[in-house]
């Protein structure tokens, strides 16, 4: 079979795999995105002792391969099946999709926390002071000044992290989740035609490209205040093009 025939024959499966990849990546990044702001704040503000568990978690995630983390959850949970059954958690861990999602969410949370921590620490102190001086409460300052700035600063790095996560999600195929990679391996084992891997690569490439485009669009919106045409100081615009 030539590559085109492969595509014609198997595109529904590949599409199915692409949707699974998107689902894994999107949900994983979203869960991490919801948890990381709180953790990043702890990393910036809490006492060193209170941060210790968080730092341990982050360095564990960053210091070990994501595949190892996935196996730890997938096979590790099997070891504790009786206990997990007792707590009613076995139904969750029995499903490889859940295990993969948990691994990716845990992984991305660690990275996003660190990225956001950097963003929070680069928020201009002066603007926080101005917010204090006008009588804003702490939580209001976080919502109106700190996080809006932190996310703008962290935005390109966060986009990068999502792309890395998307590519890492191919590992889910190892624990029998049928994402793009899982479907591709399945098709290959039937056809022994390597061109299906090319199609898989193309799918990943398309997803990444579409994502980069969207992310950059959002970035442009977020950084209007930097790119806006500067009337009196047009020559003093330090940022021409952002690095994504």
């Amino acid at each position, binding site marked *: 079979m030539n590559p085109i025939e492969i595509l014609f024959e198997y595109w529904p499966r590949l599409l199915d795999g692409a949707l699974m990849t998107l689902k894994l990546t999107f949900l994983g990044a979203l869960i991490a995105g919801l948890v990381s702001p709180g953790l990043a704040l702890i990393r910036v503000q809490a006492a060193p002792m209170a941060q210790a568990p968080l730092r341990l978690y982050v360095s564990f995630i960053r210091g070990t391969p994501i595949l190892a983390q996935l196996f730890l959850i997938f096979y590790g949970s099997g070891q504790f099946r009786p206990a997990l059954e007792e707590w009613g958690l076995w139904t969750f861990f029995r499903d490889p999709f859940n295990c993969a999602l948990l691994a990716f969410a845990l992984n991305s949370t660690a990275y996003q926390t660190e990225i956001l921590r950097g963003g929070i620490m680069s928020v201009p102190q002066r*603007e926080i*002071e101005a917010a204090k001086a*006008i009588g804003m409460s702490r939580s209001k300052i976080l919502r109106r000044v700190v996080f809006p700035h932190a996310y703008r600063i962290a935005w390109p790095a966060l986009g990068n992290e999502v792309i890395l996560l998307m590519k890492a999600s191919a590992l889910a195929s190892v624990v029998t989740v049928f994402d793009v990679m899982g479907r591709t391996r399945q098709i290959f084992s039937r056809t022994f035609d390597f061109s299906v891997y090319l199609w898989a690569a193309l799918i990943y490439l398309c997803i990444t490209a579409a994502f980069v485009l969207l992310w950059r669009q959002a970035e442009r919106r977020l950084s209007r205040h930097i790119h*806006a045409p500067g*009337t009196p100081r047009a020559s003093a615009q330090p940022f021409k093009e952002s690095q994504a």
Partner: protein
Amino acid sequence: MTKPETILKAEDIHKSFGRLEVLKGISLEARNHDVISILGSSGSGKSTFLRCLNFLEIPTSGKVTVHGEEILVKNGKPQNVRHIEDIRSRLGMVFQQFNLWTHRTALENVMEGPVQVKREPNAEARDKAEALLKRVGLEDRMHMYPSQLSGGQQQRVAIARALAMEPDAILFDEPTSALDPELVGEVLKVMQSLAAEGRTMIVVTHEMGFAREVSSEVVFLHEGRIAEQGPPDEMFANPKTEVFERFISKVK
């Protein structure tokens, strides 16, 4: 004639950074319509003192009363922390570096306090903000971001932002020191007009012209204490202390 009411009162403010005692007991009272200029050479503690008034710097000890609401500080601990935000919202502050929120337009900067702190409805805050920006001569710059404005324009937005809170008094922390010389005038003009309409202002400044002509009272700080204090005409005509005499001869 009845005495104008006291707006702000600071009593025996001390502030130490580690072992260094920057403020060694400063008291100051601002009555309604007062324009007080605080002078002093660098390191005299004038900015620190100003920042103690709205607790951007927590004094080591002392008492600050704004419109009857008092905060007593002992051992670096304010006794009623909850009043701090309230006092801040009653005192406008204008910074040396403007400190505008760079991700918001001029108009949004001015609306932020009324909407977020005083919970005014958006439309009302917008009308007020537009009027204030007009007042500082920026009606055609309302939708620009701080990065698109010159230093003088940014500082005028910052003044409008402070005014939007309808403060009892406005604190100015060297408002013209970061400006190019040709932009100083436009900011001073706005400040002068505020003084003329009877705003209560406390101004840390190096602008001797402003201190002399606009303020009703001058306070000269030296090494963390008030060295001299009085109406500007008298003080500049006959300095009583040697340090102040030396100071004015140097800045002339």
